[in-house]
């Protein structure tokens, strides 16, 4: 019996489909207060006064806090290892102390016995703010952002090889400027938090935590001045993560601080308008990039300079997005010499953090756009340019000599050209290209393009897993991982079931509860299946060994002679119907002998290497030349995941990512006016793709190259659907309008495409 590799149904779905989900909004405690945050309505200004009198006098209002009430709480830290230079100076206080820096900056918090009363009272909080001129342009010349803080608090370089020599000797130099607009993950469920002071346990409990409960526990305890054992986090169901949900924002700290202070439960659910100005934005960056190229399109060197819009503050992710942008830009191509100079810029808009595929969505668009320019300028086939540059299978493991965290980047495995060819065959590329060419010949604007990308994930440093088995054989896997809807429970149960030879459906997977396991890394950076999967495998092997030892005694044979299948332990070589013992009986016997109540094995899986995997995407689009409207006719993703634990879930990740990526390519954008006022504050202005705008996403899940970084050979799978989507849509539009490489900015709105269509050829 094998269950790894099978598309078995999700364990998560019963609760979710029968209305038993427990999202933040579903949780309530007796006597709870409801928090409402009052946010700045100007982009930049000095607070003269905050009048809370009228709000505090409203019936049901318990308290109103302003910056002065929380002045002793330090600003929210950047995650260890993510800071660069002066970013520490740009951290955000949980309530503004003097200067508001973006529309949405928290100015006051109202606590009332009812959420509607809290909202009514919040309307009456009057902040008098002396407006200051805002910084809104990413490319404005550097100046002062705050006293002692530049609008450019950090500049960094990443690179290797002799870039200048390559350009000096170049047959051709191709250069362009490419930009990605500001957009972000927008989960169906807005953020929410519920904190309660537990008197009996003398501890603070933060319910509806998400994504990285153990990491946030450490950070929150430090902010609140608590010992670690005075704070526990409890994950609930989460309506979408995408990098946005589950970070520590001012709001979550306020809820916990208030619960501590008032010794009453405090609940907070943000509304959509708040979410769109308060939760992390992402993506916005502009690249000026050039390549030194041979006549056949082989790239000898890339020289890139880019500007990243961090917004008004550095948040928990620190410099993660620009750093990953710099190191992942070369993607699946050789690029023997490379230099990237990144400028982190502060502006008076919502702060930025990660969004699914951070740094890869953006730089895949930039890199593939550059390759399309190279093909166009040199008169080459765009796919040939990609082929000639792909890292070859005999170069694996491929080392890119960056210093990242003190060690070079190493692509662990893959046959990129073969994977690309399988994708081309799968989608019928040649016929598709012929068909598109014929349509263009007939006067239509229609085109298809294939782009390549590289994905990374599955990084450590560690994951702990404890596998416990009760006397009836019931298994619980306790992990420090989190579930953001991706199917973590199912995948972990599959790995455990495979190792123990039992049914996956009976396994309970516990996650996101800091009182159940000491350490954890949560669900970030596309790591859960790789890291927790391997830790689960390791711990389950320990339980298996104990069971076999007991069974060996019962069956009077050596443990090595035994196998477990279908929940039964038997002699491997014996015929069907030979001596056997059930897993449950072996567990009961083990526990009787040891007088324990559970067999428990805890193991740590450590890994200091990320997995790198190849992927490709195809978009086929048509453009209405008279309206500049774009229709996505086909969209396909190929991804080499090495080994798929649950192919259905991998496909789900690919489809979901692709839809979000198409949104960022065509629709989604946070725009601001010259005064720094946000223009995208509802779903009427921030356009999410719907089923009507997105075709069925065709998936090709490949298992060409298992990872060499972990015993199970697993690679990451959370982000690949989104990574190349912007690049693919842009390339296909370029093909359709007969101007390859002409799309220089995402999203491609009709107005922007019209400029291209009516502009000089």
């Amino acid at each position, binding site marked *: 019996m094998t269950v790894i590799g099978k598309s078995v149904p999700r364990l998560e779905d019963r609760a979710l489909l029968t209305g038993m989900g427990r999202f933040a909004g579903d949780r309530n405690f007796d006597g709870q207060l409801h928090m409402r945050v009052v946010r700045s309505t100007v982009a930049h200004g000095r607070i003269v006064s905050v009048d809370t009198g009228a709000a505090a006098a409203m019936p049901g209002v318990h308290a109103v806090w302003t910056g002065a009430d929380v002045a002793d709480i330090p600003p929210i830290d950047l995650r260890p290892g993510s800071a660069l230079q002066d970013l520490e100076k740009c951290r955000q206080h949980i309530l503004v102390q003097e200067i508001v820096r973006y529309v949405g900056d928290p100015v006051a918090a109202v606590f009332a016995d009812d959420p*509607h009363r809290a909202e009514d009272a919040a309307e009456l909080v009057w902040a008098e703010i002396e407006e200051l001129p805002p910084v809104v342009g990413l490319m404005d010349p550097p100046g002062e952002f705050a006293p002692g803080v530049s609008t450019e608090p950090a500049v960094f370089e990443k690179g290797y090889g002799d870039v200048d020599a390559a350009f000096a000797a170049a047959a051709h130099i191709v250069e362009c400027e490419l930009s990605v607009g500001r957009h972000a993950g927008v989960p169906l469920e807005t953020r929410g938090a519920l904190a309660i002071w537990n008197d009996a346990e003398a501890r603070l409990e933060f319910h509806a935590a998400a994504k990285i409960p153990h990491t946030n526990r450490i950070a929150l305890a430090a902010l609140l001045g608590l010992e670690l054992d005075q704070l526990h986090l409890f994950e609930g169901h989460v309506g979408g993560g995408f990098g946005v949900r589950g970070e520590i924002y001012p709001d979550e700290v306020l809820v916990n601080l208030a619960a501590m202070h008032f010794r009453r439960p405090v609940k907070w659910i943000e*509304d959509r*308008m708040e979410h769109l100005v308060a939760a992390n934005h992402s993506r916005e960056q502009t690249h000026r990039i050039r390549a030194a190229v041979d006549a056949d399109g082989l790239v000898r060197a890339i020289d890139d300079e880019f500007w990243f819009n961090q917004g008004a503050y550095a948040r928990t992710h620190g410099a993660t997005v620009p750093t990953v942008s710099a190191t992942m830009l070369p993607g699946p191509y050789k690029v023997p010499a490379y230099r990237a100079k990144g400028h982190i810029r502060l502006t008076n808009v919502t702060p930025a953090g990660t969004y699914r595929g951070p740094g890869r969505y953006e730089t895949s668009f930039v890199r593939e756009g550059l390759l399309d320019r190279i093909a166009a300028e040199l008169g080459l086939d765009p796919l040939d340019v990609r082929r000639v540059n792909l890292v070859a299978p005999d170069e694996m493991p491929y080392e890119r000599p960056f210093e990242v965290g003190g060690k070079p980047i190493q692509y662990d495995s893959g046959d990129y050209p073969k994977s690309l060819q399988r994708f081309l065959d799968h989608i019928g590329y040649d016929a598709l290209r012929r068909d598109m060419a014929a349509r263009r010949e007939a006067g239509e604007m229609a085109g298809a393009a294939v782009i390549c990308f590289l994905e990374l994930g599955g990084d450590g440093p560690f994951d702990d897993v404890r596998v416990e088995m009760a006397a009836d054989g019931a298994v619980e896997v306790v992990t420090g991982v989190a579930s953001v809807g991706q199917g973590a429970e199912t995948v972990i149960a599959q790995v455990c079931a495979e190792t123990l030879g039992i049914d996956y459906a009976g396994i309970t997977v516990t996650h996101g509860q800091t009182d159940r396991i000491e350490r954890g890394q949560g669900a970030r950076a596309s790591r859960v299946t790789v890291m927790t999967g391997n830790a689960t495998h390791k711990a389950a092997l320990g339980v298996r060994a104990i069971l076999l030892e007991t069974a060996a005694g019962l069956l009077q044979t050596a443990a090595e002679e035994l196998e477990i299948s279908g929940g039964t332990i038997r002699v491997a070589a014996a015929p069907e119907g030979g001596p056997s013992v059930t897993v449950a009986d072996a567990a009961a016997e083990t526990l009787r002998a040891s007088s324990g109540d559970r067999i428990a094995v805890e193991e740590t899986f450590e890994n200091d290497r990320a997995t790198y995997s190849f992927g490709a995407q195809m978009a086929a689009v048509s453009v209405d030349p008279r*309206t500049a*409207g774009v229709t996505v006719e086909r969209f396909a993703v190929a991804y080499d995941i090495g080994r798929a634990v649950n192919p259905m879930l991998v496909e789900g990740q690919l489809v979901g990512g692709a839809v979000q990526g198409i949104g960022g390519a065509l629709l989604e954008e946070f*725009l601001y006016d010259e005064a720094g006022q946000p223009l995208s504050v509802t779903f009427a202005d921030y*356009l999410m793709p719907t089923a*009507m*705008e997105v075709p069925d996403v065709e998936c090709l899940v490949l298992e060409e190259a298992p990872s060499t970084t972990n015993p199970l050979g697993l690679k990451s799978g959370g982000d690949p659907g989104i990574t190349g989507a912007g690049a693919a849509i842009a390339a296909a539009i370029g093909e359709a309008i007969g101007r390859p490489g002409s799309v220089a900015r995402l999203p491609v709105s*009709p107005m922007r495409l019209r400029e291209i269509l009516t502009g000089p050829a």
Partner: protein
Amino acid sequence: MKPAPFEYVIAESWDAAAALLAEHGDDAVILAGGQSLVPVMNFRLAQPAVLVDVNPVADGAYLRIDADRLRVGALTRHVRFEAPQVGGPLGALFPRVARHIAHLPIRMRGTFGGSLAHADPASEWCTLARTFDAVMVARSVRGDRRIDASDYFQAALVNDLADDEVLREIELPALGPDWACGFAEFNRRAGDFAIVQSVAAFELHDGRIVDARIGIGGAAEVPWRADTAEAVLAGAIPSASLFEEAGAAAAESVGELMTDRQASAEMRRDLVRVMVSRALEDALAAGVER
């Protein structure tokens, strides 16, 4: 995201609604389907003191042919227009227009009269009403007042209804069988507000256009009739080039076009040209089918 406190009162007849409006003046707002009003109340952009719910008004939702008029009860939900309700060219046009109005759940609640009372520049029904010179029938304690579409739309979200008047019925012409009607709209996603839309109709006798109506919405603050484009069509035989010519005339027929981040005025002018010609093509196709 909850509304500011308000008083909620029910009107079970148009006269009761009119009496409540007379009592509360501009403090009161009519609640019909609520699909525009309730969101702006939730955003607290609108904070009416009194909400007069007219949903319980008896016989407020209907489509009736009455001699040469088609009478639409103000409370008729959008969804009702998705299936043919009345015969004739206009009856055939309704489903093709209605499916462009937002999404099904919104069409289940939103009303024809509510759209006209809200007077959003991108409203399909407002454009249709202007195209066919609808008459808006408003009730107040003074009785009924009939308002021509040409006087009714005054600016974006502004119409000729007085504070104490409630829109109770919309009258459209019941077009004869020789009319063909079409519609076209451009937006970025299915169900979004139109960036530009056009309703076009013409009456054919012996293969020639003897009368034409062209209405445009989404492009300017109020929907308008492109009479110069209508003049291009009069007396002519339908053809692609004629429709292009009419589109061009329509694009030149209005001065002030809206600019927003979806589309500049210049882009809207181009879209007017395209949408008018496509609405005419749609009309021709619909006419041929009959």
